């Protein structure tokens, strides 16, 4: 069946790639928002995951590696009427774009961020990503990864993110629901999505995730940040899926005094306003 958001752009992913499940989930979630195509902007960086926006018939900003977040935040600031969703990889969001990840968690612009977390750099052929498990042998680390892995959910919680969840590419229905909640959440919302890389990651496979993951009960208290943080650190023995934390706070748009009003591109600049600014600089007061 041809869906409302399908495009005829040729797909560049490997057969069996976890990205297909994520794409499926994104389309389902967007469908459920009831939004029109022109109201949605998908923003990404670079990598296989970052090609996803091309496969969805909405507005697309496919920028530079690591730079999805600053572009997305500014798009939302400039025109808050748009629904802005970032969909990009773990290397893009947590590695190259690490600084933007930290500071946009603080900024709390109302955007939803879907991180395709396959713990590997696929497009560049198998190097470790920031979330690779220590000891994992990447294309450039023959002795195994020495650095500890980057814990995105814990970092998000510590920096005050109001919506923190984990999805799984092999369960599009479940993940689509998390995505929908993230899009509807007023503020920066992170869904880290576990995604097997069938070509380069022979450790974190569908079978491995099937064994390791479990779903959090949907009726649990999601407003306790301490408990959420404990869940965010669960990895070695089992891996929780679902909403870890959800608590609203004022968004950037609600707090920034220049955002209320029409989108920036519709705002005029009357000559008299400019003249008034010049007059404010008159040499002799009075």
């Amino acid at each position: 069946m041809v869906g409302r958001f399908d495009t005829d752009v040729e797909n560049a992913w490997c057969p069996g790639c976890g990205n297909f499940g994520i794409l499926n989930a994104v389309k389902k979630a967007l469908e459920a928002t009831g939004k029109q195509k022109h109201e949605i902007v998908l923003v990404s960086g670079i990598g296989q995951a970052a090609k996803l926006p091309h496969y969805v018939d909405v507005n697309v900003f496919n920028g530079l590696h690591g730079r999805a977040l600053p572009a997305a935040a500014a798009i939302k600031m400039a025109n808050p009427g748009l629904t802005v969703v970032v969909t990009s990889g773990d290397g893009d969001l947590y590695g190259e774009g690490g600084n933007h990840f930290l500071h946009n968690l603080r900024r709390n612009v109302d955007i939803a961020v879907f991180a395709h977390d396959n713990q590997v750099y696929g497009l560049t052929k198998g190097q470790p990503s920031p979330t690779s498990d220590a000891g994992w042998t990447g294309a450039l680390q023959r002795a195994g990864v020495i650095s500890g892995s980057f814990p995105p959910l814990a970092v998000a919680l510590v920096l005050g993110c109001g919506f923190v969840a984990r999805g799984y590419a092999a369960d599009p229905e479940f993940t689509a629901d998390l995505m929908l909640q993230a899009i509807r959440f007023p503020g920066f919302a992170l869904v880290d999505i576990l995604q097997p890389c069938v070509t380069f990651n022979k450790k974190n496979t569908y079978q491995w995730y099937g064994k390791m993951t479990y779903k959090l009960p949907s009726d649990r208290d999601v407003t306790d940040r301490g408990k959420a943080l404990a869940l965010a650190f669960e990895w070695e023995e089992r891996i929780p899926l679902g909403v870890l934390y959800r608590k609203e706070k004022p968004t950037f748009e609600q707090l920034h005094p220049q955002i209320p009003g029409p989108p920036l591109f519709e705002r005029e600049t009357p000559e008299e306003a400019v003249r008034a600014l010049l007059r404010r600089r008159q040499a002799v007061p009075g």
Partner: protein
Amino acid sequence: MEIDINIRVTGGAGQGVHTVSNLITRMVVGAGYHFHVTQDYMSRIRGGRNSQTVRIGSEPVRAGREEADILLVLNPDLLPHYLPDVGEGGFALADVPSADPPLIQAPLKEMAVQAGSTILANVAGTGAIACALGIPLETADAVFKADFKGDFFEKNRTALRLGADWAKENLPEKIRERFRMTARVHSQPIILSGNEALALGAIAGGCKFVSGYPMTPGTGILSVLANDGPSVGLLFEQAEDEIAALTMAIGAAYTGARAMVSTSGGGFALMVEALSLAGMMETPVVIVVAMRPGPATGMPTRTEQGDLEFVLSAGHGEFPRLVLTPGSPEEAFDLAQRAMDLAEEFQVPALLLTDQYLADMVVDIDPGVLDVHPVRRHIVRGDSIPRTREGKYLRHAYSESGISPMAVPGDPGITVVVDSDEHTEDGHLTEDHETRVRMVEKRLRKGAMLAGRVVPPLFAGPPNGDLLLIGFGSTKEVIEETRQILAREGRTVATVHLRQVMPFPVEEVSGIVPRYGTALTVENNARGQLARLIRSECGVRIDGTMSRYDGLPFTPATLAEDVRRKVW
């Protein structure tokens, strides 16, 4: 010029050097005269060696002078450094015992204490200078009134008068005679720094989104936009780094907002990948690069024009860009508006290249000479959006001019797709070689069109003669005054001031250069980057470069002397 008095005020950061300069300039304007301020300061928050030089004239002043007629030293430790600046017939004021000419001891501290606060030594010194110039103090009172409340307002007034009274009693009559300025009728000019003028020009040009990471000397522009921008609905956000700053501006520009960033060379180095992104996505954005000496951190608060070649060639890949080089606050106001407009019309990044000297230069301007152009938008909306037979909007549709009508996300019925990869007309990524060729050519056609709209260089002097001096950006007025000095000596000297260096005004410059015996560029850098640019763009002979790269701006008197030595 009938009146040409150069006043230098020096002290540590935090001693109120700026206050003295601010008060003097306003009193000077109140008395019907003009001024130009050059700022020289160190990269620190307190202490050090800062100075501001106020050159006063009976006609508009647009360049500095090295020799000081009046020197006010707020920190006596700095005397040995600055006392040699005082020229013949001039004098220096400092609170030190056993003063020998040209130094006169002024009891600044005592007067400050008497006025009620030791920090007012600078205001007492200002009063003494005002007395030497014979200008009324009332303008300063109005400034105090606007800035201070109650008690502190009174203390400032008192300190100013104590200084003036002391000078009346103690400054030799000969000095007061020499520097006396007869009060004239004053118009109501405004005071602008280069940074302020540029920022207000950007506002006038319809700028609505500014993101930035502070970096001297580009920060002043961010402050004006953050503080004055809200009155026209401008949104400012401080970015986490310069990479984010320019990427955010491009994101905002994608939604149709006119967007700008401001930085210096080091920050621009971080922005370079996003510059290339703007080139690929054909997103209009304005980038101010206020130069300071490099490489690396260089001399953070000083001036240089060393990033010309960097700005011209920055960014991987080939794409058109506009590089404008304002030479004065007035030009900064004008060219910032043009940059905003041309960036959007041609969907290219537009760079405004300034430097610390221009950024921090302060002058009086008749606001009537500042043109505010109506903001002409180049964005298509609603029914004016072109669509294919299938109803699709093509963000990068091929066209003869290379410019594709720009729609923005949110318009019903269409989607706007942009990509950093090479893309098809509809914005989706492609690896098709034929499309690649067509897209490269489409983008470059915009550059050719842009070259047809070049902001022409300004020419002054006889149509042919001994010497041609060519400069870009902040050297404009220094070169002009140098020309006047040399012309008075009977030399036939002409000048070219470049307001735009990319696309380069090839025809104009190629036609002028061969008409003079010697052609020199004047550049605040060591390697003669403009000379190289002219040679490569125009294929004409440039005989050499008047260089200065100590971190300080040129001044007309010394430049004239250096030219004499080099040419004659």
